């Protein structure tokens, strides 16, 4: 007698597994759906959640102010949020979910590992327009249907070079997160730039997200007598490396190159131990607030009122991304992706007065270069008291 039971069970289970998956999404009339893909959960949530909230906040403000006027018609913006968990596979699934729900405008992602996984899908689909507000990895845009309003890692490195030039540091030991695609891919270029400035590269060490003990690498580094310890990666590890370097007797200057919310930093190091550490990234929401920027202060106030805490360092970029889309829709006078892409490429910085971030206009005043990348350069900030503040390099 033949036993068919296992096969029948497989049939049933496969059927049960697949049937609930049938479905789709729908959108109401007179609304534009913008999808946002950020790590709402997982290891990068401290970046992703404030970005997602920044997108939501901008959409709410636009809607309250009358929405988006496209071809004489008013539209409300609806945000469709997807969590990529900073994982390429989950990110691809998130994008496909949005595409299946007929979402044609995408903001995100944050993670350098997710962006290259999404790129071939977006490039192939002429009914998609993507505006990256997170990753700093190079070569993620195409100027056709993929744009970015975040800096590239090259923009970060500009600030590092400026700091070394101003302070005339003679040597540096570099510690880089080996899983950060942006930092790893720019390591050679940065080392080359510093050498051109006459800086001796004492050592190049690597670590990974989640590491907690850096004593072996730091002991080795101490023996090399580097004047500067340059840490490139994420703030939790940056704080631990800084703390352990001090404990092991490193007395030189510590320089960070990472977006690092003070709340995350202070989980692993005291404010006193952070005093005087430099950071080389483009100005954050908090920096603009400290500079007295009215739009940044308004964003900060609205964010605090809604979430009972301050915005994240990338919130302004995500907030700006919605306004950039709004300006592109209105300039295009259409919601057709080809028209929006064309309008996006032609946007002037002056077309979007709501921008919090201070982008450097292209020579002809446009926001994006031909490859779809904004000009956003890193600046040097310094830790004072409980947070970062803009540094004056002439001190």
């Amino acid at each position, binding site marked *: 007698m*033949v*036993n*068919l*039971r*296992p*096969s*029948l*069970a*497989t*049939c049933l*289970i*496969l*059927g049960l*597994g*697949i*049937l*609930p*998956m*049938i*479905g*789709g999404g729908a959108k109401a009339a007179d609304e534009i759906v913008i999808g946002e893909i950020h*790590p709402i*959960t*997982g*290891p990068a*949530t401290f970046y992703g959640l404030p970005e997602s909230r920044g997108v939501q906040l901008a959409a709410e403000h636009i809607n309250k102010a009358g929405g988006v006027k496209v071809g004489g018609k008013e539209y409300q913006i609806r945000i469709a949020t997807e*969590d990529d*968990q*900073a*994982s*390429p*596979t*989950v990110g*691809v*699934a998130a994008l*496909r*979910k949005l*595409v*299946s*729900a007929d979402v044609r405008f995408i903001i995100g992602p944050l993670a*350098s*590992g997710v962006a*290259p*996984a999404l*790129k*071939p*899908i977006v490039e192939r689909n002429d009914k998609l327009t993507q505006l990256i507000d997170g990753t700093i*990895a190079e070569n993620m845009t195409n100027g056709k249907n993929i744009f970015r309003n975040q800096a590239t890692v090259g923009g970060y490195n500009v600030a590092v070079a400026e700091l070394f030039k101003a302070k005339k540091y003679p040597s540096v030991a570099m510690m880089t997160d*080996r*899983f*950060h*695609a942006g930092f*790893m*891919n720019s390591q050679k270029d940065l080392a080359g730039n510093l050498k051109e400035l006459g800086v001796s590269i004492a050592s190049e060490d690597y670590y990974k997200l989640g590491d907690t003990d850096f004593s072996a690498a730091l002991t080795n580094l101490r023996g090399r007598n580097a004047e500067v310890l340059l840490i490139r990666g994420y703030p939790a590890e940056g704080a631990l490396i800084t703390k352990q370097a001090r404990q092991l007797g490193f007395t030189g200057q510590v320089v960070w190159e990472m977006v690092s919310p003070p709340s995350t930093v202070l989980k692993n190091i005291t404010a006193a131990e952070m005093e005087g550490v430099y950071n080389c990234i483009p100005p954050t929401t908090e920096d603009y607030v400290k500079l007295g920027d009215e739009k940044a202060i308004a964003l900060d106030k609205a964010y605090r009122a809604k979430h009972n805490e301050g915005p994240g360092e990338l919130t302004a970029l995500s907030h700006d991304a919605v306004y950039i889309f709004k300006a592109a829709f209105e300039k295009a006078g259409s919601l057709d992706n080809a028209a929006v892409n064309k309008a996006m490429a032609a946007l002037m910085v002056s077309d979007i007065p709501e921008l919090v971030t201070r982008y450097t206009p292209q020579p002809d005043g446009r926001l994006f270069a031909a490859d779809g990348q904004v000009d956003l350069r890193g600046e040097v900030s310094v830790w004072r008291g409980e947070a970062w503040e803009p540094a004056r390099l002439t001190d």
Partner: protein
Amino acid sequence: MTGSNSFPRTVIAASAVFIASCAVALQLNDYYLYVVTIGAIFAVLAVSFDVLLGYTGYLSLAHGALYGLGAYSCAVLTANHGFGFWTALPIAGLITGAVGAIVALLSFRTRGLYFAVLTLGIGLIGHQLFLVFDEVTGGVGGFVGIPGPEQPDWLRVSPTAYSALLALGLLWVTFVAAAAFVRSKLGAACLAIREDITLARALGIRVAGARLAAFTFSAVFAGLAGALFASMSNFIAPESFTVLGTGFQLVALVVVGGMGTLWGPIVGAILLTALPEALRVAATYSLLAYGVLLLVFVIFAPKGIASLLKAALKSFRKAPRPAPDATPLRREVTS
């Protein structure tokens, strides 16, 4: 284990399930097609892994790296050397199988815990090699620009649907090949090794050949799964092939689904790969969920969901006992 005469029926049943799954898949939208594709690829990995773990009794933690080797082999062959997908796919499987055989020859010098630890080391080395050889693999930035599988003109479905059909097709091939393997003399030898390797040797079973065959079999299909994953994703990065990620996930799929059955790991793959994606289980809790599931199943249902389903089916099929005062049923003899 069932007799060899059940094999044709197993193939027919698997084919019916495959056709039904394809028919259902073609009705799905782009997103759910992707979920089905990923679920099917992990089911391929789980079924082939079960041939080693469930049928031979060896826990390998090198399979995340073998899966990656298949993916990178296909990526290099198609993107850098101009091979078509259909040529690169079997070559990737063969390369992975050959490396798997070498890994097996090294690893089978040890047993039990030492085997697991040795393969853990190999898995870690493999993952590091994907990072270090960045001129070939793209390093941490990943391998971009992998061509998708060529689609025949006569098959008028979307590329996403085509990927799903390929993944389901590969699952069918894996299931049938695994069913043939476990029913073969080699499969019987593997079972004997799992139960008692000393007794198996005493009975004259060629232990070395059988377990080498099981490891190589699972490596070949891990490579094929990796190749398909690379081709349909157009991009791969080392983080998809970690020991703690894919390596550990495979163990969970097979243990939760049911070791020693070929359909149990498919259930495990659906539950632990496709459904969490569909339900969007938070990443923060995913490893915790895997850990808890493993604990629960190892303690309360060591043979996995498969055993629970079998028990449920058995109790469902039991005829209700007649009440003492009821008229006894007359047994009709028909033969």
